[in-house]
């Protein structure tokens, strides 16, 4: 099968090129998620990348149809496709961000879906290009599918890991250049590897590779630097005269920028009381990925405004909280509130070290402005794992208005998973309260009441899980016009505490949602809604029949758990048609973008995948010769689609599981994703050994059974292991995670190359088509996994994966003798 263009081409060279290219592709995926989260919003970033990845499926189809001419010139087609990825990766992003796509306008402007489609097309080109090379390599070396897949996966895993480090070390534009360089290097290896070329041709190839390597470096910086949408907070802040970015930092958790505006000072005080006599002082704006505005406040400024936000509530329930734990230090608002209201010692936890560093930079100039040091101790950690591993106790644990970074960083989840607002997480925080202490959670107020009621129910279940007899007596909640604050007591709130709460609410014009002994007439008095919906909802959630109330309610209120950690998801299917019909009358804000985008991704992905899988069949004529000896195409399709779906199901469910244990969203990529891919690669490389060990049994069946066994065992084993090892240092936890991921990953890597090799021996022309089906299924799978988890949880996602592996084993291509070479 070796074509003219492959003469003299070394196999190790091709394999190394595949590894480099895979590293580039996975790095590009992660990088694009970051870049597009800055230009647009991370939900859209997710959808755009998912659809663009269908370029992989398209490449499979293309190679399936054009395999003969492409294979005949393998060196040139592989080489130029890899060079195309190298040049295309940075160029496609530059072009994509110049398109006038405005996500916010998509409901109003008929041109926007067209621009979105253009974005898909542009960004799918680099993926298409890389995938052309990869599909050709698999077609070329189907007999060595295991070894090739090993290079592919190990490369991808190292690409993921490498990108996490690159994002820490380099500016985004430079990381994009590195990705481009990987593509060029991959093409270069194949084009220039030894032998069989005339001098002139070789010179031309050399020139092309040199140009490919030089191009990313030569592209102007402003093409590659992401420009946030003009509607994002940072862009808006910069429209003020003389406003400018005074400091910025990049990291894998986001791009943090500090803005000073001397003529129209930045002032941020979310939901400040309408009774407040003073507002916030002039602050420095703090923006993550160009959005999510918050503020850096100097410690020596007039801080009285901090008394007039709902988050000040716990200070009126407690005599004088001596020790305060702030989860989400950010620009310092909660730390300053604690100091201002008399805390003696404050522990401040911040996930992103770049935020703390930036705050230090900004406050360094003015003596007395910094709030760090003295009685304030800062900790760089994930809030939940910090609390889980601590043995200390606090009078007040204050969860600031911070939202999950994980979705933005990972770029693989449609909806914000939050491991901060689950039943299990609140339980962890409750365990760290001193006797008489309070846990306080401040959230944005949404109308009609949605996540505030969900939070209340989550708190109720957390208290019940800790054995509370009367959870309602340990809960209180108030609202301003823009925020709600929930307090959960280590014990029941006494009369003094309730009096303090009522006096605070009255003085600041806040409304009571719930406290022990509240009457309906006490609610909805100062910031009035058409009806006291918050109080009624709270009373029902804390009453005897929350399930019954939730069933009748327009939004989904069931508590978030670690298995279904979608705190922000409150949309009910049954309400969706009503909201969409009302889009022009203001119904649109009630539709959750994350959810709509997830469904849209799924639908678009499924349609495109179906087309990409079916169209090549028109061109792939029925194989000549004994039809009985050839595998039925539907079996091939089901086999490779099942594997594509199942692999990603396991990967995504495990990323979720291990992220809690490892306690940092970045580890989900650097350890779980990269680890699984590398282990799967090692497994792929060991399929010959498996075939020998399996004796006469079909090795795919053996691998599928092994996966079922290990995953099934983990369902029981993991909670126990995680519990036992939760307190260990991070290096030990990573070691435990890798030890656990090893066997799963190793087995996961086997079925695909086994199937590909079997197919290559009997119907080599179907190999690229099968490879494309697998790629399409992987794309659909990522969205489908989230969709399933959203409705029934991550455990059923694993269950589905096992079923799919059983299906794959049932329809597997029959093994045949090693293909003649």
């Amino acid at each position: 099968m070796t074509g003219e263009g492959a003469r003299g081409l070394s196999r190790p060279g091709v394999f190394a090129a595949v590894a480099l290219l895979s590293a580039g592709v996975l790095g590009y995926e992660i990088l694009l998620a970051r870049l597009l989260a800055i230009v647009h919003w991370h939900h859209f970033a997710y959808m755009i990348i998912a659809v663009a990845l269908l370029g992989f499926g398209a490449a499979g189809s293309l190679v399936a149809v054009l395999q003969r001419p492409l294979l005949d010139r393998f060196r040139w087609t592989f080489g130029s496709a890899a060079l195309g990825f190298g040049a295309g990766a940075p160029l496609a992003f530059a072009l994509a961000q110049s398109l006038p796509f405005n996500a916010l306008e998509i409901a109003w402007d008929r041109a926007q879906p067209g621009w979105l489609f253009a974005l898909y097309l542009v960004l799918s080109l680099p993926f298409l290009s890389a995938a052309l090379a990869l599909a050709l390599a698999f077609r070329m070396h189907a007999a060595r599918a295991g070894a090739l897949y090993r290079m592919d996966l190990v490369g991808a895993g190292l690409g993921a890991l490498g990108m996490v480090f690159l994002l820490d070390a380099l500016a985004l534009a430079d990381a994009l250049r590195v990705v481009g360089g990987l593509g060029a290097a991959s093409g270069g290896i194949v084009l220039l590897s030894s032998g069989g070329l005339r001098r002139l041709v070789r010179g031309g190839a050399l020139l092309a590779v040199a140009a490919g390597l030089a191009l990313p470096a030569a592209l102007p910086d402003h093409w590659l630097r992401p420009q946030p949408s003009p509607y994002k907070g940072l862009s808006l802040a910069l429209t003020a005269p003389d406003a400018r970015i005074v400091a910025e930092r990049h990291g894998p958790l986001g791009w943090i920028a500090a803005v000073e505006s001397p003529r129209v000072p930045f002032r941020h005080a979310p939901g400040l009381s309408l009774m407040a006599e003073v507002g916030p002082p002039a602050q420095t704006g703090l923006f993550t990925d160009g959005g999510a505005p918050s503020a850096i406040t100097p410690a020596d400024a007039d801080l009285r405004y901090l008394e007039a936000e709902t988050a000040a509530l716990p200070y009126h329930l407690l005599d004088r909280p001596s020790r305060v734990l702030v989860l989400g230090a950010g620009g310092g608002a909660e730390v300053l509130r604690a100091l201002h209201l008399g805390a003696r010692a404050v522990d401040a936890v911040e996930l992103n070290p770049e935020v703390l560093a930036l705050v230090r930079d900004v406050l360094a100039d003015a003596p007395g402005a910094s709030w760090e040091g003295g009685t304030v101790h800062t900790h760089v950690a994930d809030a939940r794992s910090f609390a889980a591993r601590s043995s200390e106790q606090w009078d007040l644990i204050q969860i600031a208005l911070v939202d999950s970074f994980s979705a933005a960083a990972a770029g693989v989840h449609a909806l914000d998973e939050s491991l901060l607002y689950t039943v299990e997480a609140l339980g962890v925080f409750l365990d760290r309260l001193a006797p008489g202490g309070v846990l306080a959670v401040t959230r944005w107020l949404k109308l009609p009441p949605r996540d505030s009621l969900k939070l209340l129910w989550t708190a109720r279940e957390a208290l019940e899980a800790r054995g509370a007899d009367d959870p309602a007596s340990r809960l209180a909640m108030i609202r301003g016009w823009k925020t709600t604050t929930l307090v959960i007591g280590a014990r029941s709130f006494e009369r003094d505490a309730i009096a303090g709460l009522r006096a605070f609410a009255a003085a600041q014009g806040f409304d009571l949602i719930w406290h022990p002994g509240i009457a309906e007439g006490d609610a909805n008095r100062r910031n009035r809604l058409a009806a006291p919906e918050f109080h009624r909802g709270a009373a029902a959630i804390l009453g005897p029949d929350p399930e019954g109330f939730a069933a009748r309610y327009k939004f989904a209120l069931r508590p978030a758990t670690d298995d279904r950690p979608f705190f922000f998801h409150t949309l009910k299917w049954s309400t969706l048609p009503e909201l969409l019909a009302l889009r022009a009358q203001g119904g649109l804000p009630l539709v959750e973008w994350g959810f709509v985008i997830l469904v849209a991704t799924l639908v678009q992905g499924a349609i495109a995948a179906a087309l990409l899988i079916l169209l090549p069949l028109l061109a792939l004529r029925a194989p000549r010769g004994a039809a009985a000896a050839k595998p039925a195409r539907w079996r091939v399709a089901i086999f490779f689609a099942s594997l594509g779906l199942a692999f990603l199901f396991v990967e995504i469910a495990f990323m979720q599981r291990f992220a809690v244990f490892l306690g940092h969203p970045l580890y989900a990529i650097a350890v779980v994703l990269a680890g699984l891919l590398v282990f799967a690669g090692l497994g792929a490389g060991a399929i010959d050994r498996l075939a020998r060990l399996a004796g006469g049994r079909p090795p795919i069946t053996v691998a599928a059974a092994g996966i079922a066994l290990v995953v099934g065992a983990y369902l029981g084993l993991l909670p126990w292991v995680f519990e036992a090892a939760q307190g260990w240092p991070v290096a030990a936890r990573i070691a435990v995670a890798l030890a656990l991921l090893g066997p799963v990953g190793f087995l996961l890597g086997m079925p695909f190359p086994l199937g590909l090799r079997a197919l290559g021996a009997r119907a080599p022309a179907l190999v690229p088509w099968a490879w494309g089906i697998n790629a399409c299924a992987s794309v659909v799978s990522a969205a489908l996994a989230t969709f399933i988890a959203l409705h029934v949880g991550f455990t059923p996602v694993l269950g589905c994966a096992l079923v799919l592996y059983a299906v794959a084993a049932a329809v597997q291509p029959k093994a045949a003798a090693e293909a003649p070479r």
Partner: protein
Amino acid sequence: MRPTVTALAALALAALLPFAAGPAAISAAAAADDPFADARAAMVRAVALDAEQTAVWIGKSALAPRVMEAMGRVPRHLFVPPELQSLAYENRPLPIGYGQTISQPYIVALMTDLLAPEPGDMAFELGTGSAYQAAVLAELVAEVKTIEIVPPLATNAARRLELLGYDNVEVRAGDGYHGWPEHAPFDVIVVTAAASHVPPPLIAQLRPGGRMVIPVGSPFLTQQLLLVEKGTDGTVTSRQILPVIFVPLTGGH
């Protein structure tokens, strides 16, 4: 505002403003009657229909006739970028540059209605933008003072209002956080610039018995309207108005 003045002003505007230029606009505006009159009337009907449908939440089935008349007079097509003029009377928000938008007509009408403006009122607006809201208010009150952070937007707004003959509006470029103490107190205040909070100086500059409206949401999506009322005794209360038709929360009727 008189229709004839509107047409004349439109001519001048089209000739002078960078925002609404082009020979087509000039000849269109020069036509004897306003070519956008039908579109504007249709827009007003669409706003009335929205109001009727959202009666449950806004607490009434129709907006004040004075407000609807003002909506029918202000030439909205001269407040949007020229390339979007054909969309000016659709019931939707439109971009005006600098990350800002001209609000959906229904939201403008509802906000204006909630302010219950009286002919003798003194109004303050934080966030001029295209000045469309200021023009609607100018039709209904004695004087409007408005402050815009972005200097070019402020300049354009001032010129546009001047050419349209709105001599009762004063535009200033700068920081509106501290209100406009020289003209305080105000009977009505609009805060259209997306803010994390309501500046305390503005509440202080609201006259007892006065009303303030703040849209909450993102540039293209107004989630809810906050209506702040100062009682004659100075006490501040507020209401949240959801500009959406939504049947009761727990199903059924």
